[in-house]
């Protein structure tokens, strides 16, 4: 990958909720992170590890209590006079962890238009964007006139994500977007994010509890543990440190477990990077087995063995 410009950089960031009061609760300690334009970043970590706090620092909803946060052309530092952040937030979208706290208007359409209108788009364009975002999330346009709180959990989640996409942000941040979706919708969402990233060059940050659902798509991973960013690196590096994941409160993804089993049995595999998909993994194993002289079982068998999500 060619060197791309850094769009998000956190330097020695600390964050404490209700700092200075008797209820102060430290959430982040000395976090150093760097994200380049056009990458798809997965953020994993146990509950309470600071993932949501991290996302809220990036679009200035929270100002750091230590260190500095640079996002696009803004630099946020502790105690600074609260800057006008709308120009930043137009370019950095955030879909919240709980969609029912995200939607508030009396129709879905108004909710989808809320962001675009705030960012100064004309009405008509906002309306088009709303419909377009809804289609991108594969929701029926009939929902536009419904009250958001009458939608099902999955529809509400999709509508909330659509309300972020409608404003067309360069950086899209999603806090556990797959939590209330079924597995088909989850896969669909992730391929949508991949499209936004690969074809439109947007930067995507996605928090998830299920590393496996994003392992094939993410360029980079950040692992949070007890308020610290304990890991930032590519999927291969993550695979190499699979043993530490448990201690960080992250379940070892199925593909990694499977690949580890295979590499321990077929040492010739261990020099290869971890295949991203089931098909690639089956192919790599097939080649290794054939190359070792054995005729081996067909690729179908391995594929079944490693079937994921």
């Amino acid at each position, binding site marked *: 990958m060619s060197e791309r410009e850094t769009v998000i950089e956190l330097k020695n960031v600390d964050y404490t909720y209700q700092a200075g*009061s008797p209820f102060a609760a430290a959430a982040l300690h000395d976090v150093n992170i760097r994200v380049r334009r056009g990458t798809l970043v997965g953020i994993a970590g146990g509950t309470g590890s600071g993932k949501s706090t991290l996302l809220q620092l990036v679009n200035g909803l929270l100002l750091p209590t230590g260190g500095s946060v640079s996002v696009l052309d803004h630099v946020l530092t502790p105690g600074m006079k609260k800057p006008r952040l709308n120009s930043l*937030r137009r370019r950095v979208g955030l879909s919240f962890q709980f969609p029912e706290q*995200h939607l508030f208007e009396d129709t879905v359409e108004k909710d989808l238009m809320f962001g675009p209108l705030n960012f100064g788009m004309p009405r008509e364009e906002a309306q088009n964007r709303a419909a377009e975002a809804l289609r991108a999330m594969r929701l029926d346009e009939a929902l536009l006139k419904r009250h958001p709180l009458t939608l099902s959990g999955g529809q509400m989640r999709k509508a909330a994500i659509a309300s972020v996409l409608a404003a067309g942000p360069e950086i899209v941040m999603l806090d556990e977007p797959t939590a209330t979706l079924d597995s088909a919708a989850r896969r669909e969402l992730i391929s949508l994010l991949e499209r936004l990233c690969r074809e439109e060059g947007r930067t995507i940050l996605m928090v998830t509890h299920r590393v496996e659902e994003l392992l094939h798509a993410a360029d980079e991973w950040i692992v949070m543990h007890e308020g610290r960013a304990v890991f930032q690196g590519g999927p291969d590096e993550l695979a190499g440190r699979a043993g530490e994941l448990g201690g960080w409160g992250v379940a070892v993804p199925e593909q990694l477990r499977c690949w580890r089993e295979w590499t321990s049995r077929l040492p010739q595999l261990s020099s290869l990077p971890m295949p991203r998909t089931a098909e690639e993994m089956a192919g790599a194993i097939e080649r290794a087995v054939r190359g070792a002289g054995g005729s081996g079982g067909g690729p179908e068998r391995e594929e079944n063995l490693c079937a994921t999500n």
Partner: protein
Amino acid sequence: MRDKLILGRMIPTGSRVHELDPRAKITAMLLFAAALILSGGWAELAVLAVFSVIVLTATKIPLRTYLRALRPLRWLMLFVFLFQLFAGAGAGAAADSAAWTLGPVTLTAAGLSGALLAVSRMALLIVFTAMLTFTTTPSMLSRGIEGMIKPLSRKGSTGAERFSLMMRLALRFIPALLEESQTILKAQAARGADYEEMKIKEKARLLMSLLVPVTVGAFRRAEELTTSLEARGYRIGAPRTSYRRLSWSGADTFFTLLFVLLLAGTLTMRLML
């Protein structure tokens, strides 16, 4: 919003005051409020102030924290001050002793003293309420109230228990609702409607828009909570073991007596001076 609201949450320091029976603390609070209301002038107020500083120190919570509890109410206190000042000025002007005149308004030394007295009383009352909530968890507080009204209600009536459950739920819901409103405001800010960057008219519209989701959220939570209470076998009037029994000890009697004396002292001063 939430960051500034510190009234109404317990601060554990493990002091003797924390361990007192909630009934003793509530009684003391009532006695203190009575003494405040009955106090007539600066002398009584000085005694009450010294007394409360001693009690506040005993809670091991920094005095600074108590002052912070006053902050959200500073405008209300200013209003009370000005109101008393001008209301008092009208009465004072007739009874001569005009101190200085400012346009149509005449201020008197008596009016000023009366207004300061009113604000000081109010501040002491707030600080004392803060003391109660800083040293007692909401559930202990409501259990204390339940324990105090139970002897007053008819035998076999579930009124006290109902009241206590209601209090406990309310105390649990208020912070939850505040938090929920704050999250929605944040979500709106993320989509370009930053409350702090808005004009007053837009602010009003935004706050109105919170009403529906927050109310719906509250009902949903209430429903979930009652279902889960029932699922866990809670029934009003059913015999139940409290997992933390209230127990009245010597310290509680001592603490309450202290406040009885305080009230008696204030009354005597008022009558003598």
